[in-house]
């Protein structure tokens, strides 16, 4: 019996000052339960979709959103995941709870307060969202920063394949065009051109400001249940048809591939096999897009083009963006909508499968994929995880 998403709850996104992570998680859970047509008393399992990375309120904690909302759960798990792949791990855990009959309805909720935190530090003359230095982490002593270590992928791709900053910029422009069709996107109403991308300041060469994702406040929650129970909920179910994972631990340093590819193949193959699909069946792809190069590596890794051909693909007329052949990051993604890790990619996939996308809706979406990425160990990209989820309209 398959597992289905039957509820989706999304709070205000972007700048949401004055709300704690816990209160945002609580509100998203409340909205998701309402969206499913369920009562809070129906929920008997809860999972917090959060990683330890980042420190502060992102660390493990004693309090929990099910306590605040008063959910009578018999199972609560906090902090699943290593980085931006936690929805895939949360759904896998939820599926176990449901399929083993431990729980009937599981709510997974996750929040971030990155925008508010970064503002506090900017007022103090600092930048970014500082995080607790992990025990034994070597690279922070070398001044690694997210744009600094994610940019290694861009420099390497440029070196190997002649990829240009302008080509990466095409991804930023295409996603901004999608965001302009999504009223909930932070950058809706602010279209950009390739010249805007090229003229934006260089943060960590080769990355311009417009190669870099947003920092957001907000929360999103999902309610999951089994296929049979899903018949009684308010909206048509979205089937969780495939979940797959890949790790750079599969190859470590000796293959020297980390900086020109993501560990997509096993994640893709596992998820696609479970769902019984091929790439041709995918109507929309929601790629984890912390930076522009990750998107290019996924266009290559999922097989929309060959390795090293991403640059040519994104600048070919009619290929990407709202009018393009390949429909990806249809809500604007982390680059132009909001950054809740892969909660952003999965929520947009659910919206598309439900045909709730309004102006940005892709017609007749039967199959959506949503990816996740992150969880650096020791140094950026030294060991990163990739997750693939396949969400479908039918079982």
């Amino acid at each position, binding site marked *: 019996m398959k597992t289905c998403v039957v509820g989706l709850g999304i709070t205000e996104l972007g700048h949401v000052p004055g709300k704690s992570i816990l209160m945002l998680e609580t509100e998203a859970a409340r909205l998701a339960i309402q969206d499913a047509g369920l009562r809070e008393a129906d929920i008997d399992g809860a999972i917090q979709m959060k990683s330890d990375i980042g*420190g*502060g309120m992102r660390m493990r904690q004693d309090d929990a959103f099910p306590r605040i909302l008063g959910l009578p759960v018999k199972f609560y798990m906090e902090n699943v995941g290593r980085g931006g792949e936690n929805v895939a791990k949360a759904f896998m855990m939820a599926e176990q709870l449901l399929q083993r009959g431990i729980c009937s309805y599981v709510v997974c909720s996750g929040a971030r307060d990155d925008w508010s935190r970064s503002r506090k*530090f900017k007022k*103090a003359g*600092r*930048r*970014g969202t*500082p*995080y*607790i*230095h*992990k*025990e*034994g*982490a*070597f*690279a*922070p*002593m*070398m*001044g*690694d*920063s997210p*744009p*600094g*270590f994610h*940019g*290694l*992928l*861009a*420099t*390497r791709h440029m*070196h190997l394949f002649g990829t240009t900053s302008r080509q990466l910029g095409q991804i930023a422009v295409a996603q901004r065009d999608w965001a302009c069709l999504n009223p909930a996107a932070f950058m809706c109403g602010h279209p950009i051109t390739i010249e805007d991308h090229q003229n934006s*300041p*260089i*943060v*960590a*060469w*080769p*990355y311009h400001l417009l190669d870099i994702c947003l920092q957001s406040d907000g929360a999103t929650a999902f309610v999951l249940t089994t296929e049979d129970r899903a018949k009684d909920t308010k909206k048509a179910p979205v089937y969780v048809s495939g979940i797959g994972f890949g790790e750079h631990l599969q190859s*470590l*340093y*000796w293959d*020297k591939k980390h*900086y020109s590819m993501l560990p997509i193949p096993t994640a893709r193959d596992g998820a696609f096999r479970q769902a019984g699909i091929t790439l041709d069946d995918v109507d929309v792809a929601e790629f984890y897009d912390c930076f522009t190069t990750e998107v290019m590596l996924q266009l290559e890794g999922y097989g929309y083009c060959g390795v090293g051909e991403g640059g040519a693909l994104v600048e070919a007329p009619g290929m990407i963006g709202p009018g393009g052949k390949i429909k990806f990051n249809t809500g604007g993604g982390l680059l132009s909508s909001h950054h809740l890790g892969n909660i952003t990619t999965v929520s947009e996939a659910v919206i598309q499968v439900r045909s709730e996308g309004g102006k940005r809706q892709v017609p007749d979406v039967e199959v959506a994929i949503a990816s996740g990425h992150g969880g650096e160990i*020791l*140094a*950026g990209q*030294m060991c990163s995880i990739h997750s693939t989820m396949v969400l479908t309209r039918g079982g």
Partner: protein
Amino acid sequence: MSNFGFPSPQFNEDMQPFFEGTAQRKFKMMRCRQCGFWNWPYGGCRNHDNEAYLANMEWSDASGRGKVHSFTIARVPFNDAFPVPYVYAIVELDEGPIIPTNIVGCAPEDVRIDMPVTVVFEDAPNGLVLPRFKPV
């Protein structure tokens, strides 16, 4: 809550021999006594199964040479312990492993992928001696 300033990650006993090495201006890597396989940081041999607690691996003097595998140039400061510009890089060591580091001793815009580099040791504000790399 704020953690700005130069990082002071707590290294456990697995990494102590490495920093004891850098304090003496020596670049050490782990080497397999059985087959000569090199690893960095602490880690086992991938050519065959390992002995208890990686007893087959030994911290050994290494060349400290390599080439730039990839790099970025920080232009916007995110932490004032690291004045910009500076080069954050991954160096592929001659023995095979990669190391996150900085390229020093040349202008950031002169750094190239595959450029040969050699280790230099610099005293860090956290009391450790860190390996950075400069062009050969």
